[in-house]
C-alpha cells in the first residue's frame, strides 16, 4: 500500500519537474518567435528540427568525436595520475603533512590563467586540451584518495597488523576497500573538472574541434546550429556525469557507516 503511494508521489514529482522544463522551453519558444531578433535566438522547435542538418554539416561529427576522445583520454589520465599522487602522498603521514598543503594551494589557484601556456607548450591540437583537462581532473582524485586513506579507523590497521598481515595484505584488504567510496567520489568531481578543462581549452582555441564550430556559428549569426551544438554537448556532459554518479552509488553502497 505505502509503496504504491510512494510510487505515485514520485511520479507526480517527475511530472512536475518535467513540467517546469517544458514551461521554460515554451517561454523560450514564444520569446524566440515573437520578441527576439532571429539573428540571435531561434526557437527550440527549430533547433531540434535542425539537429540532423547539424550532423550533416561538414566536420561537425568529426569534431564531436575528437572532443569525446579528448574527454575520455583526459579522464583516464586524471584517474591514473590522481591515484598515483594520492597514494604516494596519502600512505605516509609525513608525506601527507608535507605535500597536502601544496596540493591544496595548487588546487586553489585559478588554472584558467595558465591556459595560454598549455596552448604554447602542447600546441593547438588535442594534446593541449587533454593536458588542460588533466590539470583540472587529477586534483580531486588525489585529494579524496588522501582523505580516504586518512579516514581509515586506526583500530582496523592495528588489528590487521596484530593478526600478522603483511604490508601488501594491509594495502589489499584494508586500505583499498576503504578507499573505494572516496575514490569514486573523486572520479565524479574529476569528471566535472575534466569537462570544464577540455571545453574551456576547446573554446579558447581550436582548429577542428567543437570550439572551431562554436566560433564559426557565432560569427555567422547562426543561433540554430549554435544552440544545437551546445545542446548536444550538454547532453554528452549529462550522460558522462550520470555514468560516473551511478558508478559511485553502486560501488559505495556497501559502505554505510
Amino acid at each position, binding site marked *: 500500500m505505502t509503496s504504491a503511494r510512494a510510487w505515485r508521489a514520485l511520479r507526480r514529482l517527475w511530472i512536475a519537474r518535467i513540467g*517546469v522544463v517544458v514551461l521554460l522551453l515554451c517561454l523560450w519558444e514564444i520569446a524566440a518567435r515573437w520578441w527576439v531578433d532571429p539573428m540571435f535566438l531561434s526557437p527550440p522547435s527549430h533547433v531540434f528540427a535542425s539537429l540532423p542538418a547539424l550532423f550533416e554539416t561538414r566536420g561537425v561529427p568529426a569534431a564531436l568525436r575528437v572532443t569525446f576522445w579528448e574527454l575520455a583520454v583526459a579522464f583516464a589520465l586524471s584517474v591514473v595520475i590522481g591515484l598515483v599522487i594520492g597514494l604516494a602522498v596519502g600512505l605516509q603521514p609525513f608525506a601527507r603533512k608535507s605535500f597536502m598543503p601544496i596540493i591544496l594551494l595548487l588546487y586553489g589557484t585559478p588554472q*584558467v590563467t595558465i591556459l595560454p601556456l598549455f596552448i604554447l607548450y602542447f600546441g593547438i591540437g588535442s594534446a593541449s586540451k587533454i593536458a588542460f583537462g588533466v590539470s583540472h581532473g587529477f586534483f580531486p582524485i588525489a585529494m579524496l584518495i588522501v582523505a580516504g586513506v586518512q579516514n581509515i579507523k586506526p583500530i582496523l590497521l592495528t588489528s590487521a597488523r596484530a593478526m600478522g598481515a603483511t604490508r601488501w595484505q594491509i594495502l589489499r584488504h584494508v586500505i583499498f576497500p576503504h578507499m573505494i567510496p572516496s575514490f569514486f567520489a573523486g572520479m565524479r568531481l574529476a569528471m566535472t573538472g575534466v569537462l570544464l578543462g577540455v571545453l574551456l581549452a576547446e573554446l579558447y582555441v581550436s582548429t577542428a574541434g567543437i570550439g572551431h564550430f562554436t566560433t564559426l556559428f557565432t560569427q555567422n549569426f547562426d543561433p540554430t546550429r549554435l544552440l544545437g551544438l551546445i545542446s548536444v554537448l550538454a547532453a554528452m556532459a549529462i550522460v558522462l556525469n550520470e555514468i560516473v554518479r551511478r558508478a559511485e552509488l553502486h560501488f559505495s553502497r556497501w559502505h554505510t557507516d
Partner: protein
Amino acid sequence: MRSRSDEREGRLASRAVQAAFLIALIVLWYLAATRWGVSPLLLPNPTAVLRDFWQILRTGEFLGDLRVTLTELAAAFAIAASCGVVAGYLISRSQYRIRVFEPLFAGIYSIPIILFLPLYVLFFGLGPASKIALGATIGFFPIALNTIAGFGYVDKTLVIAARSMGASDVQLFRYVLLPAALPVMLTGVRMGFTVALLSIIGSETIASLAGLGHRIVYLAEGMEMAPMFAYIVFVVAIAGLLNMLVSTLEARGRRR
C-alpha cells in the same frame, strides 16, 4: 611532554620539506631558463619575470584591466547572490518545491555552463555584459542550492517549539530560520563568488576586449613571455587575495 615536542618537530620538518620543494622548483626553473637552453619563448628567466612583476606594480599599468575585471565580478556576484538567495528562499518554503527544483538545479549545475559562453557572446557582445551574464549564471547555482539546503532542512523540532511558544513569522525567521540557515548559505555564497571569479577570468581569456584574462592572452599572442608570466602571478595573487577576503567574511558571518 615528549610527544608534544615530537609533534612540533614533525611540523617543522613538514614546513622544511614544503619550503625545499618550492625552492627546488624555482631553482629548476632558473637552471632550465639559463643553463639548459630552454628557449625564452617557452620559459622566461625568473629574474626577468620578477623585474616585470615589479614594473607592473610600480607603473600601475594593471589598474585599467583590474578595474574591468573587478567591475564585471561585482556586477555578476551581485546578480548571482540576490537572485540565488531569493530563489532559494522561495523554493525552500515548501518541501514539494524543494523536491521539484533541487534536482533540476543540481542537474544544470553539473553541466559545464561555460558551454553557453558562445551564446552569451552572441547575445551580449564581446564587452563586459557577456562576462557578467556568464558569471551570474554560474554563480547563481551554488548560492541557490545552498540557500535551499540551509532554509529547507531546518530541524522541525526547533520550528515547532518556536511556534508553540508563540513566535510570529518575523520572529521565527529572525531567531530560528536565519541562524540555522546562515552557515550553509554563506558557504554557498563563497562558492558562488569563487566560481564567478573563475568563469569571468575564463571568459575574458576566451573572448573579450579588456580585463586581466584578456591581458594574459594579448601578451601570449605577442610572445611576450616575461610580462605574461608576471601577469599570471599577479592574477593568481589577486584571486588568492579575493578568495581569502571572502573566506574571512564567511567565517565572521558564521560566528554571529
